[in-house]
């Protein structure tokens, strides 16, 4: 009897331990509209200096709001590293090996801008071009509310308002700068603001969580070919119970309070990221090329960014990413690396510069595919949450082709993350 009681007690304790954990369930999502969108990977390289082939990124940003103008306050983070010293001094780099004796020093700075989106409107721009006044779909002229006169501003309407665009909504105020340098690698974060407030503040209206986004990374190996890799932006919804933020410190996820109400401003970052992948260097089992068929070789690159950043003091989030890797024999490997602002690397360079010796190498793992689980740890004030995207590349005898896909998310970071904006 005592044994049964102990068992019941144990089961109860386990259950209670699981219960609160459920409250910390991550709700970030790449397939639903949200109030904060993160594009982990934005690249531009007109000459293929960093990425081998000319590369550009098409950013899609749309509003699902059915009746109101929405403002996206965006931060384009430039994480391009540069050589310090050596023969390549000042050149953009991915590692010190390309610096001719110098050191590849990580860079981090951000540019903020606004995008005004009318109801149900799709907008898009190339990272290299941005979006200037001339590119905006709805900028005028408008019509005065008190007379059928053409106008560009209220002062031309003698007391009336100048209504520009259907339902009086327009893209005026939008200005997306092109990426600040070539080559460029970085990330983009857009926060939904309420344009009706003065000064504008994070949107707390009933139609918050109205933004959806995508990115397409185009690679153009030569003028006659194009390769596209598309992924959905990761979305953080404003929490319903707590409402969106009223200050400039956006809290991304913490457990619910005793009454079951969220104590954070937005949903939390995932506690664990999971993705399946081919191991690097694996021979693609699908032969291409018909009679003279050959099998390509696979590689996967992983892009990670911290969920928290201090954009006010220009302090990037810094998180140590811990990796658990399982091959098809259920064997487990582990590694870790620092994610300082942005991490973008072939998976077989996460743990070593010698790809063939990596735990993500097909030669080491012995199987074609694996499952990698990622957890952020550390003591940065901005938190330990991570988000990202994976890109598969298959190189055949005649072409290299790629495809991006989202990382799976499980649980949430217990302590939450902080995104501080100016």
């Amino acid at each position: 009897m005592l044994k049964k009681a102990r068992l019941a007690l144990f089961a109860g304790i386990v259950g209670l331990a699981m219960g609160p954990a459920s409250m910390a369930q991550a709700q970030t999502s790449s397939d639903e509209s949200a109030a904060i969108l993160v594009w982990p990977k934005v690249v531009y390289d007109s000459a293929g200096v960093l990425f081998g082939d000319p590369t550009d990124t098409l950013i899609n940003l749309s509003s699902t709001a059915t009746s109101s103008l929405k403002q996206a306050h965006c931060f384009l983070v430039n994480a391009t590293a540069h050589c310090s010293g050596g023969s390549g001094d000042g050149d953009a780099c991915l590692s010190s090996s390309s610096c001719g004796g110098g050191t590849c020093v990580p860079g981090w700075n951000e540019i903020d801008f606004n995008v005004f989106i009318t109801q149900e409107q799709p907008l898009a721009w190339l990272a290299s071009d941005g979006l200037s006044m001339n590119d905006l779909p709805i900028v005028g002229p408008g019509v005065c509310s008190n007379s059928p006169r053409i106008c560009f501003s209220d002062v031309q309407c003698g007391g009336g308002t100048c209504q520009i665009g259907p339902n009086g909504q327009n893209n005026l105020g939008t200005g997306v700068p092109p990426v600040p340098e070539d080559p460029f690698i970085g990330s983009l974060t857009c926060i939904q603001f309420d344009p009706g407030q003065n000064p504008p503040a994070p949107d707390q209206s009933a139609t918050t969580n109205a933004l959806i986004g995508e990115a397409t990374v185009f690679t153009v190996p030569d003028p006659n070919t194009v390769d596209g890799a598309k992924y959905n932006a990761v979305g953080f919804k404003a929490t319903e119970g707590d409402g969106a933020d009223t200050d400039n410190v956006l809290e991304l996820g913490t457990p619910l309070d005793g009454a079951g109400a969220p104590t954070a401003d937005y949903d939390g970052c995932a506690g664990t990221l999971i993705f399946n992948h081919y191991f690097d260097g694996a021979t693609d089992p699908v032969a291409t090329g018909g009679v003279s068929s050959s099998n390509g070789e696979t590689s996967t690159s992983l892009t990670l960014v911290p969920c928290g950043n201090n954009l006010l003091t220009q302090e990037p989030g810094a998180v140590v990413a811990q990796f658990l890797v399982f091959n098809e024999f259920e064997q487990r490997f582990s590694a870790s690396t620092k994610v300082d602002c942005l991490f973008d690397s072939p998976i077989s360079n996460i743990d070593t510069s010698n790809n063939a010796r990596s735990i993500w190498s097909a030669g080491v793992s012995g199987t074609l595919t694996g499952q990698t689980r990622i957890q952020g740890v550390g003591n940065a004030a901005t938190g330990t949450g991570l988000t990202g995207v994976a890109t598969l590349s298959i190189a055949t005898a005649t072409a290299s082709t790629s495809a991006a896909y989202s990382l799976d998310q499980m649980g949430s970071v217990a302590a939450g993350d902080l995104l501080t904006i100016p």
Partner: protein
Amino acid sequence: MRAKRIALTTALLGAFAVCTLAASVASAGVDHDRPGSILIFPKVVSSATRDTTIRISNTGNMTNQVRCFYLDGDTCGTIDFDLSLTKQQPTQWDVSNGRTVNLLDSFGSSGAGLDPGLIPAQGDFEGSVVCVEVVDDVPVAQNKLKGEAIIRDVTGGDDRNTSAYNAVAITSGTGSGTSDNELVLDGDEYAQCDTVHRVDFIPDDSPGLDPVLGETSSVVTNVTVLPCDLDFSRRAPTSVVLNATLWNEFEVQTSGPDTSFSCWASFSIDPASLNPATTFATVEYSASSPVVMVVESFHSDTGLGVSGSAARNVHTGGAASTSSITLSATP
């Protein structure tokens, strides 16, 4: 006696907490970036020009048994097979080749690893793959499966047609699950499918065409749809009518042509109703019966005859009416 009462109370509270966990997990609904109990790969192709690799992994720490079904989009016929994945085990197969059980597969070969089971090869195939968590052939929702599909060109030319998307994952519901072969997607047994499916796309008759390739290029966006009402037992197709609402960059809303299909459909978005056509547009689909979908866009240069493709999961929202997936009886 007091200790027994405390233990009983704690156990009840624990059970309640576990139920809370189930409810919390279930609230996630149909997802593309979380593990689930039912995995749906809406677009699976095997032909002379394209092939698909299916990747599935068990994210749990217990062995996970899985029943999978190939659903032929033309005939609505099905072929089922079983997988057994050890803890955290990933596995993969190419639809054209399937996967054999061979303990002597050499390291690094496509069959290396713990064989999950015999997976039949498909010849010319266009349709979907649906996988369900089971224990001893009884569906048990554990939310431990995740997967991706990779569709690639196999002609060996200059085309860059490799596309990848995450499997649609249907999570457990708030209830106690099911004990029969009818999986009810009602929020109780399993999460409901979505009502809204939204796609941003480049209209193929838009003035800007592909933003990178330029003036002689075209972009075709293909949508693949599978009803959430699936009957693998009677192989009965479900008929669906899709209504399209489109918006251009000028915020002008139009209604696209309705699309009617039975069992499975893959079609290109018709932008003809966009007025005026703009470089970018949005389409939102609502369906007469719950569906899941995936999108693949083809960027090509008509002058040069080359193309590249990219797939993605659609943006979704809302909880659809009840639907069900009926598994065939096991032999």
